[in-house]
């Protein structure tokens, strides 16, 4: 079974600074997707960024970027120019296979606080 580990229960960062959230995963598969989701107090999970395992180039979405190390099974999220609205729980998630006909497996999350 696939597992996702987030070793940082809580993190804090000053507004406008950069923060990196860690994620490692365990799988014997070669084809899969990785995701970072944000969950604000409203409880609604919002997709932040997505990475296909077959792509060597790291995904980037505006202030959010990932460092995908396939051999090390590591998938960290970097948030640049942190904003107060980035305060939320962040979950790393794994999906197996090209068809996507498998459920997302989530880590336990990292609570990020952005301090003014």
């Amino acid at each position: 079974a696939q597992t996702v580990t987030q070793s940082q229960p809580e993190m804090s960062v000053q507004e406008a600074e950069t923060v990196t959230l860690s994620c490692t995963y365990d799988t014997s598969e070669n084809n899969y997707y990785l995701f970072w989701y944000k969950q604000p107090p409203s409880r609604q999970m919002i997709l932040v960024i997505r990475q296909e395992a077959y792509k060597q180039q790291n995904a980037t979405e505006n202030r959010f970027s990932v460092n995908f190390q396939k051999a090390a099974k590591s998938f960290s999220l970097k948030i640049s120019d942190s904003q107060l609205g980035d305060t939320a729980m962040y979950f790393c998630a794994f999906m197996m296979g090209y068809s996507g006909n498998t459920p997302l497996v989530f880590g336990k999350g990292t609570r990020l606080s952005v301090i003014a």
Partner: protein
Amino acid sequence: GAGVSQTPSNKVTEKGKYVELRCDPISGHTALYWYRQSLGQGPEFLIYFQGTGAADDSGLPNDRFFAVRPEGSVSTLKIQRTERGDSAVYLCASSWSPGGELFFGEGSRLTVL
């Protein structure tokens, strides 16, 4: 509607009672997922529908939990003889197809006293 809608937003019930939680996915989304999120944990998969049929129900914890999607749109998660351990936020998500981006609702918070 514009997004995934879940009702009720909050439900408080007594141990042993029956509960139904409803999910209205984004129109046209064929794939629908139910997850359970306990306090301080990440969401855990319960069941996945492709159209009207349950494609994967391996995450349902026991036979007290059941879900339906009779017309391939709205889904209902049903919990019989609720226990205090069932207290959690139940999240629903939908997507255009398996592997597509998942859009989540705001969840239903269930509290079993």
